[in-house]
């Protein structure tokens, strides 16, 4: 714990430095508040509107988590399907990979047409954003399973079920977590976009409405909270990943793992 704090010290100092530059710069150059508000005004705005922002925060977080959860379940099921069926591997998998090039933003308005202005369309947009990384990375994890281990288990008389439980699933876990981390990071963006398309609550709606009113400090306070939400979601998944996968990595690999974690 101590060492992880020591490792994150440089980035924390850097963030504080950026904050100081922000505050000093906006004051010194007298930048209009609707272009870039002062950091102190943004923080003050968060403080003043705590209750309201808390409510919007909860709404957006709920949409993101619900979409993320559904994607985790169906993305994993899709990966299992791709893994267990040769036909699905040849037809569904390439399609899922190719679909990642579709600009999801362009598809999002359709979700409103299908699911209306309530929470349904927001969750649907989150699923659009998060389903593919989970499905593709988990499927890749299955594919990366060491064939030597599978063969060895077969010589020991292992059946399909044992192969799946004792070989395929543990092999796919790292891929699944990679997908889930990516999904967690972008789920907040999906929820925000869903709210922009129409809605009564949530931080996305709040920033858009504030922007229409040229209230810079309110827009930025929304953005800050959305970023915070994304970071917290990402770190939660990373924490779970480490708790589950850490034992299988040796001490010497743990350091490089931390290095990677810091980059993200």
């Amino acid at each position: 714990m101590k060492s992880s704090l020591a490792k994150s010290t440089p980035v924390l100092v850097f963030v504080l430095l950026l904050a100081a530059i922000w505050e000093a710069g906006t004051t010194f150059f007298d930048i209009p508040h609707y272009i870039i508000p002062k950091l102190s005004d943004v923080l003050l705005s968060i403080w003043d509107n705590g209750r309201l922002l808390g409510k919007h925060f909860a709404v957006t977080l709920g949409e993101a988590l619900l979409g993320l959860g559904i994607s985790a379940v169906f993305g994993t099921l899709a990966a299992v399907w791709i893994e267990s069926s040769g036909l699905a591997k040849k037809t569904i998998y390439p399609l899922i990979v190719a679909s990642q090039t579709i600009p999801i933003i362009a598809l999002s308005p359709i979700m409103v047409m299908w699911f209306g202005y309530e929470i349904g369309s927001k969750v649907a947009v989150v699923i659009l954003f998060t389903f593919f990384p989970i499905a593709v990375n988990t499927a890749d994890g299955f594919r990366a399973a060491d064939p030597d281990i599978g063969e060895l288990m077969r010589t020991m008389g292992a059946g399909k079920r044992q192969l799946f439980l004792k070989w395929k699933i543990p092999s796919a876990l790292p891929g699944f977590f990679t997908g889930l981390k990516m999904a967690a990071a972008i789920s907040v963006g999906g929820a925000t976009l869903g709210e922009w398309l129409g809605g009564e609550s949530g931080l996305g709606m709040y920033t858009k409405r504030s922007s229409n009113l040229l209230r810079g400090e309110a827009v930025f306070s929304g953005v800050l909270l959305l970023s915070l939400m994304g970071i917290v979601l990402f770190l939660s998944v990373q924490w779970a990943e480490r708790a589950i996968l850490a034992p299988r990595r040796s001490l010497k690999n743990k350091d490089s793992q931390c290095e990677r974690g810091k980059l993200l």
Partner: protein
Amino acid sequence: MSEANENERHNALSVRGLTYSFPGEPTLFEALDFDIKQGEFVSVLAASGMGKTTLFRLVAGLLFPQSGTIAVGESQDSAAAASKLGKVGYMPQRDALMPWRTVLDNAALGLEIGGTTRREARRRVLELLPEMGLAGTEYKYPDELSGGMRQRVSFLRSLLGGGELLLLDEPFSALDAMTRVSMQEWLLQVWEQHRKTILFITHDADEALLLSDRVLVAAKSPVSILKEIEVTLPRPRTYETVMNENFIGLKRELLGHFEWDGGNSKGRSL
């Protein structure tokens, strides 16, 4: 072991008329016969590309022969590949340890698949760890172990998982020379204690002679005859044996079985 005793022993493996080729490739084995007796340590010596690993996969039941039979154990009648799965302890060239399992749970894999409870499987592994030279490693993960130690775990897994017959596919080929010597001595020691039937594949003549009761030489492709050399050196053997005059004589005889072709064909050197 006396001659009479020798004949009484059952065949642990009996191969008759084995023919196999991969689709569109030259035949690897043609009408191949050989037997291995219970408790025997037999090496198959062949150059790369002769189908050593394919032979193992056939014996383990991962591949089906195009013709001929491969019988494991006493049940000479049943030649179905499906029945062989689970009967043979296969130790692959790469250790194929599960990085997410401890030494204890890796070694227990075969028992677990065979239906032993996890608790009982762990108990039996723990019992064997000290004599395998693995005492104290039970809760380590594979990437905390050296190459030699990983192969010991892999061997223990095959020993516990399979039946009477162990197939060892060049298990020490990836190790550095020093480690290889110590692993060979280790295997000799373990084998003298357990006396399982071992079929060992290698391309190292010294290794084959040092370890085995018999060496089978696959000299030319397709393999239809395995030339046989009885290794009469007394046991227990150590690495000192390699310097012995009888050993050198056997090695000369062994290498004489290979048909040298001047190195201009696909025949890679030993």
